[in-house]
């Protein structure tokens, strides 16, 4: 059905092959042009060697099914696809910039670079999970960056769409994935766990930071299975300047039990962007891999273990939303803030794994003032932080479920909207100030946030006012 000898200049359904860009095991990638489509495009042509290589065929079918249903900046835009009856192919946007794989020659990378890559890839993963797709093959060669630094995920040949048939699970008995990056549940044939992508990202960050793969490069089934009980050497044992927070984040991603990892990729992005908000645990200080006894216990548990519950990307995100509350602690807002507290408490008790980001904005006179730079600014910031923490105290949320942020900006509404966008907030709650001459003059912050926010917004009023 498919040919292998493609030549530059050859035409396929109106696309002209220009230059072969990559020659992988499963597919070749060509730069192509088309009379009707502008913009740079690539064509992916599967290598089909017939019946001996079903992974390539089913993987390509899977990608043809999923890629056209994806959208947004974190995936290559879909252009066209060709049927298996003639010549199967996929045409998509050509993302400028090299894959993360090119950076592997420069390992280890600096702490800042590793955290920044981690946050950007986690944001891309969250966007994918929101579209009910789990990637299941996160590794450096499948991650590209746009010129503005946005991470783009490619190769959906092993991916899983919540609402579509899983052709791969049906076809193969061996676990599917790339051996060094495969999560324990993938080893156990569970393809429905979005936190598998967080595990793979953890492996990648570990590798970028230390130059060593946490679980090596196993080539046998038994070797891959070892990660069910053998924990990796803590990164700080390999890299002295690794900060405790980064070790804690990476080791949490690498937890065998998905429930011990971050609840969502958005939460992971949030802590990578705000490491000062991370309450440190024993993981942060760990200096060596676990002793033989706990490893032996995990090994016993792993014997004959089968995947457990069914879940999906959509369910996961529903259970662990990121809630943002904008708190205005200025005098006179006490009654409003009490109403706000009641609403937040209600929401947090309903979504049991929800994370709360408490945000307060310090209004500056103009753009460009950095509050951190002078003494007065620092004081203001600290004072504001103390009042926001005080406001949230009655919620009695465990440290791992709550973060605090003080933003300094001339335009509070834009700052709140921007924070919600950057941190993939699912639901924003804020108070509506009472009408006053000042408000009429300045306009309403909440109205602007409602109009511009990327997520759902609840505007809370004082209880007395609600009638």
């Amino acid at each position: 059905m498919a040919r292998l000898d493609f030549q530059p200049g050859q035409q396929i359904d109106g696309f002209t092959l220009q230059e072969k860009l990559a020659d992988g095991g499963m597919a070749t990638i060509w730069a192509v042009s088309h009379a009707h489509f502008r913009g740079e495009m690539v064509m992916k042509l599967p290598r089909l060697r017939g019946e001996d290589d079903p992974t390539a065929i089913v993987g390509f079918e899977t990608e043809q099914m999923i890629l056209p249903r994806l959208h947004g900046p974190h995936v290559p835009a879909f252009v066209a696809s060709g049927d298996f009856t003639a010549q199967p192919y996929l045409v998509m946007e050509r993302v400028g910039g090299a894959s993360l794989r090119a950076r592997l020659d420069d390992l280890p990378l600096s702490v800042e670079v590793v955290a920044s890559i981690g946050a950007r890839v986690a944001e891309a993963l969250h966007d994918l999970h929101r579209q009910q797709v789990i990637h299941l093959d996160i590794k450096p060669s499948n991650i590209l960056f746009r010129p503005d630094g946005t991470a783009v995920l490619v190769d959906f040949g092993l991916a899983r769409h919540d609402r579509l048939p899983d052709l791969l699970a049906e076809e193969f008995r061996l676990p599917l994935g790339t051996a060094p990056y495969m999560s324990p549940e993938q080893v156990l044939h569970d393809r429905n766990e979005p936190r598998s992508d967080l595990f793979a990202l953890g492996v990648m960050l570990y590798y970028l930071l230390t130059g060593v793969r946490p679980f090596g490069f196993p080539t046998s089934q038994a070797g891959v299975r070892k990660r069910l009980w053998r924990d990796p050497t803590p990164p700080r044992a390999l890299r002295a300047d690794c900060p405790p927070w980064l070790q804690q984040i990476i080791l949490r991603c690498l937890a065998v039990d998905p429930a011990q990892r971050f609840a969502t990729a958005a939460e992971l992005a949030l802590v990578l962007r705000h490491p000062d908000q991370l309450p440190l645990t024993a993981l942060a200080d760990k200096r060596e891999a676990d002793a033989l006894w706990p490893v032996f216990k995990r090994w016993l548990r792993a014997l004959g273990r089968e995947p457990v519950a069914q879940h999906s990307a959509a369910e996961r995100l529903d259970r662990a939303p990121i809630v943002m509350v904008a708190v205005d602690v200025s005098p006179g807002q006490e009654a409003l803030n009490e109403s706000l507290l009641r609403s937040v408490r209600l929401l947090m008790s309903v979504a049991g794994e929800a994370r709360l980001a408490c945000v307060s904005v310090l209004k500056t006179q103009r753009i460009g003032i950095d509050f951190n730079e002078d003494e007065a600014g620092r004081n203001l910031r600290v004072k504001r932080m103390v009042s926001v923490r005080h406001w949230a105290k009655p919620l009695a949320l465990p440290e791992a479920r709550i973060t605090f942020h003080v933003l300094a900006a001339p335009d509070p509404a834009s700052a709140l909207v921007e924070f919600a966008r950057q941190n993939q907030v699912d639901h924003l709650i804020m108070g509506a100030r009472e009408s006053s001459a000042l408000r009429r003059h300045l306009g309403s912050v909440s109205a602007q946030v409602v109009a511009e926010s990327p997520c759902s917004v609840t505007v809370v009023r004082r209880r007395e006012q609600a009638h």
Partner: protein
Amino acid sequence: MLLALLTDLHANRQALSACLDDAADFSPDRYVFLGDYVGYGADPEWVLDTVMHYVEWGAIAVRGNHDAATAGTLRRSMRPDAQAVIEWTRPRLASHQRDFLHSLPLTAELEQCFFAHANPWQPEEWEYVLSPADAAHALAAVPHKFIFCGHAHDPALYNLSSMGKLGHYLPVPGQAIPLAGPRRWLAIPGSAGQPRDGNPAAAYALFDTDSQSLTFRRVPYDNAGAAAAVRAAGLPEPLARRLETAG
């Protein structure tokens, strides 16, 4: 060409009219009825007249086991409840309705699609497609890329890969599923007139033969009204309750 596939209507007027209303929004080019127009429900005349009207205007319709039993051509006996409704239905039908039941073929074909009520391997024996093994049997019996059948009341989608592996998928309503690739498919739209999967909403499916995209639909309808009609007609109580609970 957009096909609307409806099966196991079971004399349920409320469910059929809700499905037809829902389908009309998509302007199907062709309707396909996969059998069992009568039995269980209280409105066999209206349902048959409606299906006959669609057939006059080009719809495809095949025969189900309840249709055969009502027409008197079923060799096997049915369960008591089902048999009781057949006995109740038979004298109510006019001769043109009986003639219609007699005239129905067991199977039909359209381009790459094959249609049967129960299964393609021995359609007159009414064996169910309930498991991946049954689906493999069905896909081996005819060469068509797409098989559509009913009889089993729960929506289901099976696929046979080019490597001979069979997959089963529990359909998510409203999601367009691409049935492309080097594989063959067997789809059961699910019963319109008597759902049994715990969801009382009527089931049917839409299939676009050009884009090869299949969408399972669930349509909430006046199932309380349909159950009341079953009770008013004096038909067995479990049949009324089933419309309420879809159990």
